[in-house]
């Protein structure tokens, strides 16, 4: 008997996503739950997939890792959820039982990636499985769909009992915890200056979180006017438009030649470079001399003060040519990683419930699921002042 179907956003290749009719997911393991999606966002890291930067994608894969919705089915061993619960689903799939999960390192879960052997061959070890983010990262169908199968359902999803809107809580799935962990990894102390490259959604939450963690000054770096305005308006950030100014010179001017105490790279593999690197990085990637455009990483290493901290929430996929000699000789601390989302869910939900932050400030577009192909293109091209897209199945 053929299964019921649903609409889902599927990857078909470079800049080619479509809404397809696919089988509805079903319970496979006893700790699974099925969630009917009410809101699901397009993440900046989805654009790495959209632009075909991430290895081991397969045509037809269901995208999406920022979903929320209502629990409609649970496996026999699910204890913390009931049918009808309203939940936000973290993008990291974590078992909750392995040594890494017990240390709170949920994105390093030992058990959730069914394709761990492939990841191990490419990276030495396998991180956690992720929703909708390549077969190397598990091959799990994503949440830009009408329904989602959620493995280890007692460990990931957080119940939302209050009447907060989907727009206010949806970003607990990824970008709010990701921005927060980026700021936490920046080791911010009183009177510190923090520079944040990239004022997309993760950058915006990193800027907000840096403020929450006590940064005296936050400098936001981008070239998109509305994104710089948002950083200035919502977090009182000073701004640098890298298309108009030399970032190093301006940061040295702002910090009396010391450099920012902490630098956050919220851009990752697809950085737009300027100058010679801006020309050579794409060529090197095309001829397979490197896998990433590490322009921001290079600039952050150069700008960061001696003994400072570099935090990297931006996604990189492989080999990147960076000046590690400068990082070593300047004694920088570098912290990175996919977000341990489950660790941050309760405390960050509390900040939303307390009114300390309203994450819906980043939303620029809210459209039906059918509009996904146009919305990917709009978000990718930064047209129509697009900062964050929510899709509603």
């Amino acid at each position: 008997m053929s299964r019921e179907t649903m609409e889902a956003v599927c990857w078909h290749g470079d800049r080619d996503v479509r809404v397809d009719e696919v089988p509805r997911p079903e319970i496979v393991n006893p700790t699974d739950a099925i969630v009917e999606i009410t809101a699901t966002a397009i993440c900046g890291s989805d654009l790495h997939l959209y632009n075909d930067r991430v290895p081991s994608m397969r045509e037809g894969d269901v995208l999406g890792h920022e979903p929320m919705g209502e629990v409609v089915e649970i496996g026999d061993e699910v204890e913390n959820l009931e049918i009808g619960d309203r939940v936000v689903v973290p993008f990291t799939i974590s078992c909750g039982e392995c040594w890494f999960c017990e240390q709170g390192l949920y994105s390093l879960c030992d058990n959730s990636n069914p394709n761990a052997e492939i990841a191990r061959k490419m990276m030495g070890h396998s991180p956690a499985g992720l929703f909708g983010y390549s077969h190397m990262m598990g091959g799990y169908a994503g949440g830009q769909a009408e329904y989602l199968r959620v493995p280890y359902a007692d460990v990931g999803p957080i119940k939302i009992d209050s009447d907060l809107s989907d727009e206010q809580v949806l970003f607990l799935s990824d970008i709010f915890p990701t921005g927060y962990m980026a700021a936490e990894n920046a080791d911010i102390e009183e009177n510190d200056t923090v520079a944040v490259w990239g004022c997309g959604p993760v950058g915006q939450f990193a800027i907000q979180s840096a403020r929450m963690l006590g940064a005296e000054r936050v400098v936001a770096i981008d070239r998109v006017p509305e994104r710089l305005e948002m950083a200035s308006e919502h977090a009182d950030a000073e701004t640098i438009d890298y298309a108009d100014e030399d970032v190093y010179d301006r940061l040295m001017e702002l910090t009396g030649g010391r450099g920012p105490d902490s630098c956050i790279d919220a851009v990752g593999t697809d950085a737009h470079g300027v100058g010679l690197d801006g020309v050579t990085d794409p060529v090197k990637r095309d001829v397979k001399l490197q896998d990433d455009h590490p322009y921001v990483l290079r600039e952050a290493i150069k700008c960061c003060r001696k003994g400072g901290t570099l935090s990297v929430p931006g996604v990189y996929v492989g080999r990147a040519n960076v000046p590690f000699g400068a990082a070593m000789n300047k004694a920088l601390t570098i912290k990175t990683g996919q977000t341990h989302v489950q660790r941050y869910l309760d405390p960050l939900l509390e900040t939303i419930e307390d009114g300390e932050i309203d994450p819906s400030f980043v939303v620029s577009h809210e459209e039906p699921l059918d509009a996904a192909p146009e919305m990917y293109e709009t978000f990718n091209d930064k047209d129509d002042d697009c900062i964050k897209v929510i899709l509603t199945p």
Partner: protein
Amino acid sequence: MSADAVDSEGETSAAETAAANRERRESDAGQWRRVGTAALGGALVVTGLRRRSLGGTAIALVGGWLSARAVWGLVRPDRDPSASASQAEPELDDDSLTIAESVTVAKPADELSELLSDAETLSRIAEPVVEIESTGEDRQRWTVGAPLDRSVSWEAELTAADAAADLRWESVDESALFDELSVEFREAPGDRGTIATLRLELDPPGSELGRSAIERLDVVPESLGGVALDRFKSLAETGEIPTTEANPSARGEGDLV
């Protein structure tokens, strides 16, 4: 003299017959192993292609490699069919493949040992490539499916190992694809549980070509042990094995390409 000669001829004849019988048995065993290896290889290829994922591709590669080794062993022109077993055996030994892989599991050794000595656990770890069923106390039947409804099957016995928690399986039948399979358990440092080390001596016949294939495709043979240990660890720590079986995509249902 003549009687002596007759006796001598008779003794020689009996010795030759015994040797010929031994050679035939051992040759048959080698043949079975080749057929078994081809079957395992074929099963892996079919399974891998059916899954149509990167994991499936890895399985298919393993299968293709094993099949190639087996077929090469069957048709290799420099193999003299009249060669004695004592000559052939070292070649088999030379071509055997030892897999050794370790994993750290957040459970005590005795619990892991009990779990792994259960035929159902073994079957869940080995599926869909190998089916394992209990045939009595400490005995299991291992079956590898092959295309065209053929299969290779053999009995393995759980035997005493050096340490109390360690496990060791020895094949009872000549058609077995492994001579010995063992899992050793030792305490991990700190609070990290137990280090489980799997050693598997696969004995597919082969050749220098097969050996060079191992070296070129070093990713592939080790994958057998790595994948098995991943599945065992997940089962021990969480009670389930992660899967994308029935995964939806625009290609249809299941873990498809």
